[in-house]
């Protein structure tokens, strides 16, 4: 019998599930502490966050905390392995599309006039990170956004740390980015796949069992908002500088870590028609839902149990 705790975090919901009910208090405390640390380092919306301070000083070298340094390294690795499909240098484009404050405030706002920004592709390549000295140089005018990688990496780190500290099998979900560590319950961790991470667990949808690594879902139907140019969403295509308009609505990926899964699912949304072969070449398992509602999977994606409400 598992025990679950959930609470708001990162503008979404954190869910912690432990296989050993006795571990829940320690596990929840460890998770909350880590989330506070990461939020303080990586938030784009907190005036006192380290990332906001770094973005204010683009064009000059800045010293980073070990925490933020690790997250920037992960974001640059993600850009490298996807050849820039997952790009941390798109903060300005996100802001121009209307995502310039916490999503709760964006969603509550009455419309937005989309601004055009000068498109300069591949700027992530000019970001210099020295991991030893922990110094970062971001080209002038470039705003970092770690949204595509920070939640997933936090889920990975938290799940692993909790499993090690408590000895309990652990699942951590941050807005639907799921990482598991330690021994899974018999039959695995059952996860409902949906367009939205806050879907009712009793509702319809495909269910799969996860035993290791991570699972992440990226969707253009969540975190979207009205503008004078139609609905915008938060997955920016670095090739165009505006929200991705490919054929997929939602992509779920299972991989060795939640970070890998989220990088792959984001890249797939951006890639569109070429996503399936791209995912197969990278040895990950994926389920893709087209805008039409048609569902496809990579070759090993399970024929899963689909429950209707």
């Amino acid at each position, binding site marked *: 019998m*598992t025990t*679950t705790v959930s609470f708001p975090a990162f503008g979404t*919901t954190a*869910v912690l*599930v432990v296989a050993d009910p006795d571990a829940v208090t320690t596990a929840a405390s460890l998770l909350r502490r880590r989330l506070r640390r990461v939020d303080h380092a990586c938030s784009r919306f907190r005036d006192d966050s380290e990332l906001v301070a770094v973005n204010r000083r683009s064009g000059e070298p800045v010293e980073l905390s070990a925490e933020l340094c690790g997250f920037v*390294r*992960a974001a640059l*690795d*993600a850009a490298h*392995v996807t050849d820039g499909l997952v790009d941390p240098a798109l903060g300005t484009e996100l802001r121009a599309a209307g995502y310039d404050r916490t999503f709760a405030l964006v969603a509550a706002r009455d419309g937005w006039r989309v601004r055009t920004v000068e498109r300069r592709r591949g700027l992530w390549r000019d970001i*210099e*990170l*020295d*991991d*030893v*000295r922990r110094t970062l140089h971001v080209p002038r005018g470039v705003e970092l956004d770690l949204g595509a990688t920070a*939640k997933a990496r936090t889920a990975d780190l938290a799940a692993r740390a909790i499993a090690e500290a408590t000895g309990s099998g652990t*699942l951590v*979900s941050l807005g*639907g*980015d*799921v990482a598991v560590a330690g021994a899974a319950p018999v*039959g*695995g961790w*059952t*996860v*409902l*796949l*949906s*367009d*939205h*991470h*806050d*879907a009712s*667990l009793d509702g319809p*949808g495909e269910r*799969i*069992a996860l*035993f*290791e690594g991570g*699972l*992440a*879902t*990226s*969707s*253009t*139907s*969540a*975190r979207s908002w009205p503008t004078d140019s139609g609905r915008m969403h938060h997955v920016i295509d670095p090739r165009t500088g505006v929200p991705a308009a490919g054929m997929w609505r939602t992509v779920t990926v*299972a*991989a060795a*870590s939640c970070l*890998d899964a989220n990088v792959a699912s984001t890249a797939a949304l951006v890639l569109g028609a070429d996503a399936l072969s791209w995912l197969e070449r*990278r*040895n*990950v398992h994926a389920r893709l839902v087209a805008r039409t509602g048609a569902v496809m999977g990579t070759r*090993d994606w*399970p024929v*899963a*149990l689909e429950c209707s409400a």
Partner: protein
Amino acid sequence: MSTGVALLAAAALTGAFTALAAASTHAKKIVRRLETRRPAAHRLAPVVAPAPPLVQLGSSSAAPRPAAPAPAPATAPPVVASGGS
């Protein structure tokens, strides 16, 4: 007599100014040389640690493929939903 002293004094002063000017030019050259040398240290390639990639996605064809998720047992209710956020 006083004219001679004045001429001598003028010549001495001229010599002194010339020497000072020469010394000053020399000093400026040294400063300039030092200034041109200093930035050279900054032009050295930055030491960037070869950090192992945190994202392992398809990093090596020899890397084992992670296990695929399995169909969930019919009796196991989901503990969490994975979806966009």
